């Protein structure tokens, strides 16, 4: 059985770092696509040159021509403008919609059997754009959000308790923005809810920091946003799909009534395997959690509605 192919659309910091993480797993041939052809080819070569030292042995190819993604099993869309200080949110929405839509059409043409992972922001809205533009089955378009948000939450908990990261698990629902819904009672250390291990003030502080996790990094970098953790989250999803790992984790999935939400991508626990989103799990939520999720969902709904005012196909 030939090795599978994974293509990454957008070879910026997130795309290139995701490519690197996936290369190190030695599970797929890799193609990076970017309009900046020279830069993309250069990064591909640079990765290949590092292979003998890092011990991975997979072809990595940088290109501008979408024909190179032919027959990919998984395509990750990271292309898009990053939010810059002072940038109008609507302008960003419009620009990234154009980019994701164009990429999606190429994917539908060259890699019609792929599962598509969306990383471009605003995440939940871009998932919607990709689903419509590819025309793919609902389970084959999925957004990277909850794995990143819960990774940050896990780090903050481990840091506060001084325990190993590997002991901490977490669940974050909702849209990928500051209205995300981290769940303290489903955030655990060796299976013990943090509500038994930390006081409420500490938990509140950690949940707040999680919601603002992306902004905290932007605040330091000034001219850029986080890419190591987002790329790691995307690579984790790629691995789960390629290796059919049946990984239960929060991802942005298209809902048809689950959690009382229709026709919208929202972060929920899913099982990721070779068929993309293979299952959506519905958790019992408290009234407060349900209310938070409703607020978060309303924010995503607003973004999709705005989209529909600009574009006929949305």
């Amino acid at each position, binding site marked *: 059985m030939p090795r599978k192919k994974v293509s990454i659309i957008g070879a910026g910091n997130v795309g290139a770092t995701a490519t690197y993480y996936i290369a190190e797993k030695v599970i797929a041939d890799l193609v990076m696509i970017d309009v900046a052809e020279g830069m993309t080819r250069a990064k591909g070569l640079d990765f290949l040159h590092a292979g003998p030292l890092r011990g991975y042995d997979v072809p990595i190819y940088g290109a501008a021509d979408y024909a190179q993604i032919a027959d990919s099993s998984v395509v990750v869309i990271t292309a898009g403008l990053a939010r810059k200080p002072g940038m109008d949110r609507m302008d960003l929405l419009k620009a990234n919609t154009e980019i994701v839509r164009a990429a999606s059409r190429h994917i539908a043409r060259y890699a019609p059997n792929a599962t598509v992972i969306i990383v471009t922001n605003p995440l939940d809205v871009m998932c919607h754009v990709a689903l419509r533009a590819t025309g793919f089955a609902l389970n084959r378009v999925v957004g990277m959000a909850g794995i990143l948000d819960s990774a940050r939450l896990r780090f903050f908990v481990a840091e506060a308790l001084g*325990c190993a990261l590997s002991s901490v698990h977490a669940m974050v629902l909702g849209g990928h923005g500051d209205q995300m819904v981290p769940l303290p009672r489903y955030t655990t250390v*060796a299976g*013990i*809810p943090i509500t038994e291990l930390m006081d409420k003030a500490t938990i509140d502080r950690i949940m707040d920091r999680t919601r603002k996790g992306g902004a905290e990094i932007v605040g330091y970098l000034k001219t850029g946003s986080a890419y190591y953790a987002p790329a790691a989250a995307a690579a984790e999803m790629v691995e789960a799909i390629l290796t059919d790992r049946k*990984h*239960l*984790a929060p991802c942005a999935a298209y809902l048809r009534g689950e959690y009382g939400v229709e026709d919208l991508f929202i972060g929920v*626990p899913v099982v990721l395997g070779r068929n993309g989103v293979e299952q959506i799990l519905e958790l019992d939520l408290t009234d407060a959690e349900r209310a938070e999720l409703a607020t978060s969902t309303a924010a995503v709904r607003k973004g999709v509605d705005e989209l529909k005012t600009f574009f006929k196909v949305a």
Partner: protein
Amino acid sequence: MKRVSIVGSGNVGGNTAFFLAENGTAAVTLVDVKEGVPKGKALDMMEAGPLRGYDTHIDGVDDIAAIAGSDVVVLAAGRVRKPGEDRADLFEDNAAIVRSVCARVRELCPRAVVVNLVEPIGAITMLAQEELGFDRTRVLGIGGLLTSTRIRHLVAQALGVSPRETTALVIGPHRASMVVLKDTVRISGVPVAKLIGDERLDAIIAEARRAGDTILELAQASTSFYAPSAAAVTLIEAIARDTHVILPVHMRLEGEYGVTGLCLGVPAQIGAAGVEKVIELKLSDAERRAFEQAVTEVRTALANEQRRLPAK
């Protein structure tokens, strides 16, 4: 690089050395009184290294003096159960072996953290701690961690998902009366009981309780050793790499969970110095009752064991 010495080169000792080599955790010294066996196994593992991609040094010796200065000492000597035997039946035979080994460990590796895999875990870990005279935070037994990994496997299988994100804590003795903390059986933070129902989870826990017997009945000639070795390596990694991971381990309790002077499984944070912190959880009424009943049982067993303790 840290050094781990494993006393006993049978299936558990040998596989523990092998997993450590693959992880590149530490240099390994494998010791056994059976001349040639540890040397042969160590050489076999070194010769697999070029293909498996590790270059961990593994030494096999028949003289225990070679363990001097080790950071971690693993007790994997002694006899294992035959079909139909109870773990408690091993006490007399294994106590004599562990006693003589500990007398040497005390003098050769006075600063080591000791990990006990010899059954019956509770009684032997307790005996080892007394014999070594080490602080109780440096003498740990494998018990709950093994049941935990078995529950995690069964739960993942029932859900049809990967086991990597699962958790399960087990406290109390490593025998049928162990107490599985059901609320800690989770996947990605979500309680498994909510996903498969209490009844199915109870059936899984019952299956995990007898998992050791199931394997012994199937294999006849040997007890399980892959999962026990994996549990040992998880604990050894936490010590050798100072990870601060939280694992269920057996240790002598001095007031934790209301118990004094008994060796039982509890969740603890593990690092280079052994146990850094015992995590005391609120138990449900049912768990509390089950735990107290198990403690009574262990106390009675301990009195019996002390009577059967061979003379030095």
